[in-house]
C-alpha cells in the first residue's frame, strides 16, 4: 500500500494555499504535516480525503487516483464533530454503518474502545432494576455529545475513526485540548496503531509528540514546502549544534561571550547554547576545564524539531 501526493496545487481565487506539494508514504508509520496556522495542512488533508478539489497534481493510493470512499479510512478531524443531541451509541453505530461495519462487530469494537479510552460510563447505562432504576432514571439517561467535555468528545471521535479498523488513518491535531493524562492515553493508542502497521498522516503543532512518532515530515509555510524528508536525516544535516552546560562556583557568561556563542535558553538548570559544531563545543569545554570551572552537566545534541521548525517558519508559539 502507498499514498503519493504529486505536485499538488490548490488555489482560492488568486491565493495559492497549497503550492506544488509532493510526498510519498510507502511504508506503514506516521507521516507528519507541520506548519503554522494557515500553512495549508488541513487543506492538504481535506484534498487527500476527497472533501476538496484541487487545481493540479495527483493524489494516488496504490498507484491509482484516490477514492477515499473505497478505502478503509479513519479520520479524526481537527474540530469536534458530533451530533449534539443524539445519543453517543446511536452515533457510533451510525458511523460504523456508514463504513459497512456489521452491527454486532461494531458493538464489540465500541465496547473495546470505550474501555480503552475510559468512556464506558457515557456509552453504557448501569444495569439496575426496580426502585433503583426508577430513581436513577434521569441520571442514567443515555448521554449526548453536548453533555461531554471537549476531551471526552475527542475520545468519542477517535473511537468513530477507528471503528472500522482502518488501514489508512488521518489524525488532524489529535492531541489538541487534551489534558496530560489523556494525552498519554492517545499517544499509547497511536503507538499501537504504528505497531499494527497502519498508514497514518498526522498534523500537529506539538513538536515533541511528532518527534516521538514520526519518521518523515513535511513542513509547510504559507502553502509552500520549506522542509521535507526523514526526520533523523534532517536533524543530522543540522549537526550537533545544541550544547547544554551547567557549571558551579563560577559564572560562565564571560566564557560564552568570548566564544561568541548564542544563548538559546538560560535556566537554573544551566545554559542552552548554540555552537557551530562539535569542534567549537570541544574547545569551549577544554577552556572551562583549563580554568578549573566545575562542570556539572555537558551535553551536545542535534536541534529539536521545534527549533528546526522555528528556524524555518519564523517565531511561532507552540501550543
Amino acid at each position, binding site marked *: 500500500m502507498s499514498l503519493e501526493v504529486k505536485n499538488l496545487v490548490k488555489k482560492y481565487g488568486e491565493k495559492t494555499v497549497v503550492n506544488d506539494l509532493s510526498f510519498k508514504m510507502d511504508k506503514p508509520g506516521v507521516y507528519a504535516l507541520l506548519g503554522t496556522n494557515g500553512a495549508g495542512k488541513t487543506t492538504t488533508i*481535506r484534498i487527500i*480525503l*476527497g*472533501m*476538496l*478539489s484541487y487545481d493540479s497534481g495527483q493524489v494516488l493510493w496504490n498507484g491509482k487516483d484516490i*477514492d*477515499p*470512499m*473505497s478505502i478503509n*479510512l479513519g*479520520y479524526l*478531524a481537527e*474540530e*469536534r*464533530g*458530533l*451530533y*449534539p*443531541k*443524539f445519543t453517543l451509541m*446511536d452515533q457510533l453505530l*451510525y*458511523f460504523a*454503518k*456508514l*463504513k459497512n461495519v456489521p452491527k454486532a462487530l461494531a458493538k464489540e469494537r465500541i465496547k473495546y474502545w470505550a474501555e480503552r479510552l475510559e468512556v464506558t460510563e457515557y456509552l453504557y447505562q448501569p444495569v439496575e432494576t426496580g426502585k433503583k432504576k426508577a430513581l436513577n432514571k434521569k441520571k442514567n439517561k443515555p448521554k449526548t*455529545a453536548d453533555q461531554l467535555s471537549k476531551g471526552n468528545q475527542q475520545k468519542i*471521535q477517535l473511537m*468513530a*475513526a477507528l471503528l472500522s479498523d482502518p488501514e489508512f488513518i488521518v489524525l488532524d491535531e489529535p492531541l489538541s485540548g487534551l489534558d496530560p493524562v489523556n494525552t498519554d492515553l492517545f499517544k499509547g493508542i497511536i503507538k499501537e496503531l504504528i505497531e499494527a502497521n497502519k498508514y497514518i498522516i498526522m498534523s500537529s503543532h506539538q513538536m515533541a509528540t511528532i518527534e516521538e512518532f514520526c519518521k518523515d515530515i513535511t513542513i509547510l509555510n504559507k502553502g509552500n514546502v520549506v522542509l521535507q524528508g526523514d526526520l533523523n536525516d534532517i536533524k543530522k544535516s543540522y549537526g550537533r549544534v545544541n550544547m547544554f552546560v551547567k557549571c558551579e562556583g563560577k559564572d560562565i557568561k564571560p566564557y560564552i561571550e568570548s566564544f561568541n556563542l548564542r544563548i538559546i535558553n538560560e535556566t537554573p538548570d544551566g545554559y542552552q547554547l548554540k555552537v557551530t559544531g562539535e569542534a567549537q563545543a570541544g574547545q569551549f569545554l577544554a577552556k572551562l576545564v583549563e580554568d578549573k570551572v566545575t562542570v556539572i552537566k555537558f551535553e551536545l545534541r542535534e536541534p529539536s524539531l521545534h527549533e528546526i521548525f522555528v528556524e524555518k517558519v519564523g517565531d511561532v508559539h507552540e501550543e
Partner: protein
Amino acid sequence: MKSKFTGVWNVFKFSYIQTVKSKAFIISTAIFMAIGLLALPISTAISRAGKDEAQTDKAEHIGTIYVCDEALDGKLGESLVDIIKGNQAYSEKNIILVKNDDYDKVFDTVKASKNGDVLVDIKFDNSPTSMDYGFSYVVFYGEEIEELEDAADEFSMYVDSIHKEALGKIFISSQAGAELVAYNYVSEVIMIDGVGNVVEDETGLDMAQYWITYVFLFVALMGITFLGTKVSDQIVTEKSSKVIEYIMTSIKPMALITGKVMACIANIFTLFGLSVISFIGSIFINGICFKNADGSMAMPGFIKTIANEQLLEGLSFINIVSSIFVFILGFVVYGLLAGVSGAMVSKIEEMAEGMKLFSFAMIIGAYVVIAYMSTASTGAEWGAFTNFVYLFPLCSPFIVPASLFLGKMSVTMGFLSVGILLVTMIVMLYFVSGIYEYLIYYSGAPLKFKELIKLFRKKGGAK
C-alpha cells in the same frame, strides 16, 4: 467505485429513526392522534347541539319548499314533508307536495321567485343498467337571491340526511322497505337562470369538493413545512457541529441529502398515517356514542358533506395512488430546495436567513392555490389560471392530489402535471448535485440566490 448515492439507505434509516425517537415528533404525533380520535365524536356532539341553529340562519333565505315525488307515487314526498315540517329550521315554511302534472308550473314559479322558493324533485330508477340507477334528489332554486345558493346547499344536505328516515316511515319493518333503503341515491343542487336553463357547475368546486381540496392543501402545506424545517435543520446542525467532515469520508453529499429528504417524507407519512388510523378509530367511537333515530351512525354535517356517495363515486385505486405519487413528487422537490437552503448557511443562528428561498417558494405555491380555490368555489371561469395552477410545479403539489382524488382533472392535464413535476424533480436533482458538494463544506456568510446560480454555472470550488 462508490456511486453518488451509495449509503443513502443508511442515512435514511438513521435520520428516520432519530426523528421518530425525538420528543418533538412523539408529542406532535400524540397530539394529532388525539385530535384524530376525538374530532369526530366532539364534532358530532357539537353538530347535534347546534344543528337547528345553523340551519335556521341559512333557512331564512328559503321561501316556499315544493316537493315533487316522481319516485313512489307521492308517498316518499309525503313522508319527507312530514319530517321537514318537524325540523325547527323549516317548520315555519310553506311546504307543498306537488303532483307530477304541476311540475312545469312549479318549475317556472321557482325560476322567477324573488322569495327564495325551492323545488325538490325526487326520482327513482330501478333499471340496473341506467346511469341514474337508484334515487335522485335535485334541489332547484332561482338566481334572484344570492344567498339562496348556500341555503339550497344546506337544505339539500339536510334532505340527504333524512332520506332513509323518510323511507323508513313508509315501510316500517318490511322487506320492500329494506330493499328500497339499500338503493343508491344521488343529490344535486341546481340553479335555474332567468330563461329557465339549468346552470350546472362543471368546473367550479361545490362545498364538499372545496372542503376535500382544502384538506389536501392543508396536509400538503403542513407536510412541506415540516419537511423543509426538518431537512434544513439537520443539514445546518451537521455543518455547524462539523460532523459533516466525518460523514463525508464515508458518503457523497448527494447520498446525504437524498437520504434525509426520503427520511423526512417517511416521517410525514408516518405522522399522517397514524392520524388517519386514529380518525378511523374515531369513526367507531362515534358510531358507538351517537346514533340517529333509524339506528344509523350520526355524523357531523361537514363529514356528510365530504363523504357523500356522489362525491366519492369517481374514486378509484388509481386516483388514490396517483394522488399519493404527486404528494411524494412535490415533497421531493421541496425537500431538495430545503436541503439547498439549509446548506447556504453555516450556523444554526443563520437558518432563518437561509430558509428565505424555501419559504418564498412555498408561500408562492400555497397562496396561489388558495387564491384559485376561493375563486373556483364561486364557479367563476378561470381557464388559464386553472391550467397554470395545475401545471406550475410550485403549486401543483398543493392542488393536483385533491383534483386527482376527486376526478376533477382530465387525463391529459393529469399526465402533463405529473410530467412537469417529474421534470422539475430531475432538474432540481441536477442543480443540487452540481452545487451541493460545494455548499456542504461552505463556511461563511449566508449565500444569496444569485451566488447559487453563479456557483452552478461555474461548478467550481469544493468537490
